[in-house]
């Protein structure tokens, strides 16, 4: 079988986005390659979420170009996203996964087994029949991850996926993220939690005021940041 055409590298070429006359990102040029997780860090308002929303097509660029594997237009079928506060459909836990599988074009006969696999991966197999909206915050986030994986994504975007969770729930989500990354899915995650960035990142994109401050390997960023703002951010200073 011919392997599917890759959506990577994801390339932003001088991309800007304005929403109601407010510049959210300004002339960003960035390349995201396959491999270890890319983590976007930076202060609030730096443009991390906007960058992810641009990549997912939830925000249209005002100028510049975004390409996927060298192509400007793709069907986007192998990209998925998990939001900070995921919205659970008014169905059961299994129903939420089933819906995503149906949307991804998985045949009905294959869905039941896939639902079971994904719920087991997310540690939710014991909650199959429960209404999704009655899960705890951590369980909902794990279900959102399982739902995103139903698309069999090549790239998974995550926008502050643990920002609203307690440490135990955060650890559960991070464990799943590590397993997903090890399975070959490219993770691109925004977080304000530097500890989490240290734990998960293979590459860091430090963002500031709607631009890319620096992009480097995680170890290098944390030991020898290339910009004074990056160094200040790592120290915990206020970076405006």
């Amino acid at each position: 079988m011919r392997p599917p055409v890759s959506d990577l590298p994801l390339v932003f070429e001088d991309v800007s986005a304005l929403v109601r006359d407010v510049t959210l990102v300004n002339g960003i040029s960035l390349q995201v390659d396959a491999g270890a997780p890319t983590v976007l860090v930076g202060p609030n308002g730096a443009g991390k979420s906007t960058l992810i929303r641009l990549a997912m097509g939830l925000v249209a660029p005002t100028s510049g170009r975004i390409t996927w594997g060298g192509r400007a237009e793709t069907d986007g079928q192998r990209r998925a996203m998990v939001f900070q506060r995921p919205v659970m459909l008014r169905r059961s836990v299994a129903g939420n996964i089933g819906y995503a599988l149906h949307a991804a074009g998985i045949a009905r006969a294959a869905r039941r087994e896939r639902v079971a696999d994904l719920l087991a991966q997310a540690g939710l197999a014991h909650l199959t029949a429960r209404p999704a909206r009655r899960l705890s915050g951590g369980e909902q986030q794990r279900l959102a991850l399982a739902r995103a994986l139903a698309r069999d994504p090549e790239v998974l975007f995550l926008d502050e996926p643990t920002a609203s969770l307690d440490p135990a729930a955060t650890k559960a989500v991070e464990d799943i993220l590590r397993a997903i990354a090890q399975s070959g899915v490219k993770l691109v995650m925004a977080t304000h939690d530097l500890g989490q960035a240290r734990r998960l990142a293979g590459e860091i994109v430090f963002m500031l005021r709607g631009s890319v401050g620096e992009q480097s390997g995680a170890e290098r960023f944390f030991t020898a940041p290339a910009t004074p703002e990056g160094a200040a951010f790592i120290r915990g200073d206020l970076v405006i």
Partner: protein
Amino acid sequence: MHEGSSALALVLGGDAALYAIVALSLVVSVSATLLAAVVGLPLGALLALVRFPGRTFIVVIVNAFMGLPPVVVGLAVYLLLSRSGPLGTLGLLFTPKAMVIAQALLVMPILAALTRQTIEDLWAEYRDELTAMRIGPLARVMTLLWDARFSLTTTMLAGFGRAAAEVGTVMIVGGNIDGFTRTMTTAIALETSKGDLPLALGLGLILISLIVLVNAAAWGVRRAGEIRAG
């Protein structure tokens, strides 16, 4: 007091004429609500999800038509269906079908307006998730209608309530013909004017009981569904 006990005797006695009126009323109002839903629910969803020139005008009109005077709707349908009207050849005037059409026209704006509001609110909540999942326009509508099913049950009840309680429209297009187009509301109006208060009261009791029963059943279904689906 005497009228009250006579009314109760009529209801409990299983008066055939009375229950024929009740049955016709139910058939007409339920049919009208379902017919209105076929148009009103998709129209409401369309207005909630699609931006097009003139949309705001249509939204204002649909909202305004929630308060349509029944007699005006009755008059319009009468003119349409009368022998000299554009649809006169169908021979529908003074039949239950004409009553269904008129009540559906009355109920449709209610269903469309309330559906639009419900779906618009739900879409604001679901937009990012469904867009990220690459859900197409038709599937979006179906998803939103399904996930809003409990709220839409209440919307349907509001429509049914409007249809069941309505008198002016069915009086004009149905003609209140005994045994053929006489409904509970038209019968109550007629019997009251004739001074036959027991029958009017009996029908009134049944009408209110039916509306309470239908609402209670729908509330139960909604509650059970919410517990199951969250």
